[in-house]
């Protein structure tokens, strides 16, 4: 089943700065897709469009067979808004914006409460999520007192408690230490096993091949320049260099991640054999 379908989508930020340029994309149920692109290429905008938070300046975004418009998501009446919010969860890049409740416990409860999930189920879910993410010691703390990694865990917990089938993650590894990054990859692998659709916007190529099957590459002029198997795209050094995702000092030779020392000249002139 096709979950998302985008046709000729353009998005202008503040009605003049282009953020997405003629995007055509479809995402199937159960897929793991990485949205790759340099800073400012439109990845976050795409995720917000998929989550029905913003709407295209032109073109059509369809989710679960319905065209996403302000009326269908914000209008009175109809079950679609609740259905959609239960199905799709977005983990924001900026955890500070996502954590607005007085305590971690309230934060995790917020989503299920708004979506009219029965009280006993909420209780169960909150406890399970807290246990799964090992944040028992944080549950009565206020979000603004947490460290960056803890905030990210709580932000993830607050979305997981809704149990969405589609998870949208915006730069999830940004600002996390290597251990927390590893933890996140393992969590995503577990969620993948349970059949969730996971869409990650990132420029961290290290996690892509582990957590995604398909990769969609954005160029710096906000267009899709490649859409295919993640492994093949990661091996396409020329493409990744062109979209400024890798640098000649740090790139991949087939399966080996290769980093040059910085004080050198000769090492630049090596062949890139695939």
């Amino acid at each position, binding site marked *: 089943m096709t979950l998302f379908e985008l046709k000729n989508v353009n998005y202008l930020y503040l009605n003049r700065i282009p953020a997405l340029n003629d995007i055509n994309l479809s995402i199937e149920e159960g897929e793991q897709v990485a949205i790759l692109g340099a800073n400012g290429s439109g990845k976050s905008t795409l995720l917000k469009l998929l989550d029905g938070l913003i709407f295209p300046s032109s073109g059509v975004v369809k989710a679960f067979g319905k065209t996403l418009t302000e009326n269908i998501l914000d209008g009175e009446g109809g079950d679609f808004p609740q259905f959609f919010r239960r199905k799709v969860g977005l983990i924001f890049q*900026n955890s500070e*914006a996502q954590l607005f409740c007085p305590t971690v416990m309230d934060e995790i409860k917020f989503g299920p409460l708004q979506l009219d999930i029965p009280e006993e189920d909420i209780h169960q879910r909150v406890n399970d999520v807290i246990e799964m993410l090992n944040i028992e010691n944080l549950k009565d703390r206020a979000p603004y007192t947490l460290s960056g990694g803890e905030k990210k865990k709580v932000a993830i917990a607050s979305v997981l408690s809704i149990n969405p089938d589609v998870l949208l993650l915006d730069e999830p590894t940004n600002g996390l230490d290597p251990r927390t990054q590893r933890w996140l990859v393992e969590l995503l692998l577990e969620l993948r096993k349970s059949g969730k659709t996971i869409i990650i916007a990132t420029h961290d190529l290290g996690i892509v091949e582990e957590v995604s099957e398909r990769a969609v590459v954005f160029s710096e002029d906000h267009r899709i320049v490649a859409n295919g198997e993640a492994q093949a795209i990661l091996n396409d050094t020329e493409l990744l260099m062109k979209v400024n995702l890798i640098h000649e000092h740090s790139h991949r030779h087939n399966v080996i991640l290769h980093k040059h020392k910085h004080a050198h000249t000769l090492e630049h002139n090596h062949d890139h054999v695939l």
Partner: protein
Amino acid sequence: MKIPDWLAESSPCPCCSIGVGGKKNFIEKTLVEIAGMMERSIFSEKYASSKGFLQSIDPRVKLITILLLIVTTSFISKTEIILGIYALTLFFAYLSKVELFFFIKRVWLFIPIFSGIVAFPAMFNIMTPGEPLVTLMRFNSTIHIWVFQFTEISITKEGALGALLFISRVATSVSLIVLLTLTTRWADVMKSLRTLGVPQIFVLVLSMTYQYIFLLVRIVQEMHLAKKSRTIKNNMTRQGIKKEQNWVASRIGTVLMKSYKMSDEINSAMVSRGFHGEIKSHGTFRIKNIDRIWTGFSISLISAVIWLNYLV
């Protein structure tokens, strides 16, 4: 990448001849103080998380009884009864493991500034005529100023008692509210407002404002530090201070824009998790026996002080 030659040069370092010292400038002092004050007074929750008497009482019960006590205090006209209630607040502060010196300091630090200024003129015969206690100045003829007429300036007994009543009333009310906020987590105080019929959206906005103040102070502090790290001259001349003030004014605009952007993001995050114009929540508070006992005690206390004040 080729860097320009000037970037590769390092500046001379006449370390021994460099002067050191000077005072912190006003922006830095203000920011550090604001952040410190916020952390100490609001965000620390040091007493709220300790296990004392008032901490064990349900926040809703505590909020309602303390508000009732404050209302009662403002109706009482006998100073000795008010001082009795004040003594009780000290007793409960002690039972709730609040350091008494800290508690008293917290209450009395601001009273001379705010209510003291209001009460001060009322002590004199010009405002409150009566039996003079201390005469400060005597005139040969009657002085007329606007609607006032007097032949001497003195502190009157009625005036002094009135000021004492006023100050003790303010001190007791402030003590009660300080006791409530010290022994209750702010999040619980906010939730308890719902039981008083305060609309959910109002409570939500209030509690969010409270959290994001912290974030805002941090943004401002970082902005100031970023500027400081690039500022070479410590310019405390009149012109320099004016420049600093201009900088502060222009940064206020930047902070406003940043917080506007942030509010937009927060709204998106709320909508994404199912917010649809109305917040749904359910309470987790449970009424225990200690809450019943406290309620009983408060009602008896209120009845007793009203009886003492009006009927005896």
